[in-house]
């Protein structure tokens, strides 16, 4: 075990990073190569930080929690969307290519504006609990079945990292497609009894080709979701429910 670790830590890693700064009129997209000695337990967070500190002070990327929780650091890692902070270099070949997530507005190098996209998605789907109930904060809370609370949390684990959007085929053809992240939101609020919206209300939001009926079922989203959300099941279920709700109208 130790010798393997030693051998591994002796690897020289090549990072081929797609760089482009849209703020700078002189900048052209180009792949720049950086070489680092691999360290034990090295993550892409640690590697990129070291590259910035020692070789490329202008290199742009986003990390916040560096623990796989906040969803800031989605990028294409050898072509596949994933969270960079929790990707260990030992699980990658010595040649590592990094590129920003597609679809989202590019801020620079590996940094993309997922925040703006997600806010627009939330506004469009009205992704919050819609309730007319008067709030009495001194009273006992409404009861909820323990299992239901757990089921809602299952869907709420989404961290809006954007990997599902980057891995989505449909979104390439339909710019306004809400993607798996959006459909998961609908599934989450549909399940929540505190949200008073009916299936019909939700149908108004997602019952078209930019919503549940646009999905081509390629399910790249499901494969790349870092939180292993049951996106495939949610999409299929939602489509069935929305179809029924359309027929009942």
């Amino acid at each position: 075990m130790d010798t393997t670790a030693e051998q591994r830590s002796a690897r020289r890693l090549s990072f081929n990073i797609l760089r482009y700064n849209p703020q700078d009129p002189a900048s052209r997209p180009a792949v720049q190569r950086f070489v680092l000695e691999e360290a034990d337990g090295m993550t892409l967070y640690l590697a990129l930080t070291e590259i910035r500190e020692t070789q490329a002070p202008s290199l742009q990327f986003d990390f916040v929690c560096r623990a796989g929780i906040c969803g800031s650091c989605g990028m294409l890692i050898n072509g596949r969307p994933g969270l960079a902070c929790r990707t260990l270099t030992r699980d990658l070949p010595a040649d590592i290519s990094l590129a920003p997530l597609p679809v989202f507005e590019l801020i620079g190098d590996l940094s993309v504006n997922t925040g703006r996209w997600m806010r627009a998605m939330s506004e469009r789907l009205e992704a919050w609990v819609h309730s007319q109930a008067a709030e009495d904060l001194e009273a006992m809370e409404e009861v909820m079945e323990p299992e239901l609370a757990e089921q809602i949390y299952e869907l709420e684990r989404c961290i809006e990292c954007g990997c599902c959007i980057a891995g989505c085929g449909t979104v390439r053809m339909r710019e306004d497609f809400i993607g798996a992240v959006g459909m998961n939101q609908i599934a989450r609020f549909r399940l929540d009894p505190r949200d008073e919206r009916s299936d019909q209300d939700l149908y108004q939001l997602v019952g078209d080709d930019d919503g549940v009926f646009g999905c081509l079922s390629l399910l790249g989203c499901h494969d790349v979701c870092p939180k292993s959300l049951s996106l495939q099941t949610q999409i299929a279920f939602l489509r069935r429910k929305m179809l029924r709700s359309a027929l009942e109208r």
Partner: protein
Amino acid sequence: MLSLVPAKRSHSAAAQGGMQASLANTILGEGDNEDVHFADTIKGSDWGADQEVVRMFVETAPKAVRELANWGVPWNRVQRGERHVVISGQKKTICERDEAHGLITARNFGGTKKWRTSYVSDGTGHSMLYAVSNQAIAHQIPVHERMEAMSLMHDGGKCFGAIARNLITGELVAYVAKATVIATGGFGRLYRVSTNAVINEGMGAAIALETGIASLGNMEAIQFHPTGIFPAAILVTEGCRGDGGVLLDAQRHRFMPDYEPEKKELASRDVVSRRMEEHIAKGHGVESHYGEHVWLDITLLGEAHINKNLREVKEICQYFLGIDPTRELIPVRPAQHYSMGGVRTDHRGESPTLRGLFACGEAACWDMHGFNRLGGNSVAETVVAGMIVGEYVADYCDDPANGIDISSGLIGEFWQREDAALDALVKSQGKERAIDLSNRMKDIMTDRVGIFRNGEDLQRAVDELQTLLVRSRDIGIEEKTRAANPELVAAYRAGRMLKLALCVAYGALQRTESRGAHYRQDHPRRDDKNWLRRTLATWVDPDDGLPSLDYEALDVMKMEMPPGWRGYGPEDHIEHPQTAIRSQEIEDIRQRLASTGREEREAAIMSFRHLLPAQLRGHNARLGETD
């Protein structure tokens, strides 16, 4: 609202374990109420907290949990009937009441008498943050993302907003406001070994300090969390121990009961962290490539429990350690975790010295944690402070006396000052690299201003930090652009972080006692006689090499709970001369008013309800309580 990152990326998302509120729904929380939560928090703070503020907090926490429930947080719920739990390493069966079925449940956390921590699996902070953020979207509150406040605009007495830098374009914008609220979290990244997110560099506190008028309270009060995974220092929740996990040494011996026979792994964080380091120092640590650590064992909780209630922990172990915590031990060692100190405010969240400047949450010191925060009281504080301070900010803005009385000339001056400073930095021929200075600072803070402190190390830390601060005035950068430029960001933050680090180190050097998380090997006893007071740091002149320290006494004669023993840790504090007098006084009041209602007793001992916004003054309903 300005935010360094999209709001849902904020560090609150990493708060896994839960939020304390005395709902008393679970059978193991039966009998809990605001009084018990209050006492736990004061003991946790080692009597450093402001007792009125703690009262306001514990009264509001149940309301906050219930409001969040209305907003969609899927709090875990009580399941009626028998269930298996692990308490102090022992499997036990408890029986939840029928009438509690479906109400918000709670888990156990350190330093608490009752099971009081409401939770959502181990993604509590995530769910809370998303619920609040979704409400902001519902109310169409604009969030200007990737904006960094660079300085506060003020006229010497009142604050009128901030000069902010767009981190994408580099543009400088003056945000002129009646009231300005700093809610920027803590400053853990002053330390090399910290559980904090990489954005937690304390810039909110730093720009308040740089006004020269606002003060920072108790900056030396830094919490170290017992269970950062080793060596990456990523947090695994206190819920691991709350749910029954134990700490083991190299011999797989459970050592905490040897030191803390009563609370064991669930003493307060400062105590557990010190005991772990003490045990490692005695030679019982587990050797590894990166140094020594101890083990956290949650295998006894069973796979089903871990998969359901501790899955973030499981993911972190899988991804960062390559281990399966349902079968294997987790290497842990204490890591910097929380900043009890911050922008000093009154109970309304406003700076007493710079009007119109408010602060709340970890960025603030109003001061509800004193010298040690209890687990589960941080995200609880964020929402409670949002409810309380938010009301007072609204009141402040509604008051016609608080107009935007700042001249455009002065706004221009502040803008130009920032603009000139950034230009100078970009053009500087300086020889220093920001990253070298801040890396050195982080080492100093971790090595000399850590869990165990002493006068000699602290003096060396202060001396070297001062040298680094001087050197920071000669920083140069390679990448000469004012637009998006991480090197420029590191350059202008370095000096600010060093000022904060000096507030911490110098405050710790001057405080010759041990209290809560501030532990002085050369002054190991808590000294209420001389140190029952809050440190206030200001940075009067930008060219000063050290903060100016002042002290604010805590008034024992106004306390509801005069200083005593915490119930864990050593029992050797130096008593305040008024403690006995006040204790007697309270005893007399209790006897005299024994037959009266709670309200009267409350008012006679320490009146606080009037300090709350009117709509938050009501009593919280509880199961079986008829009031």
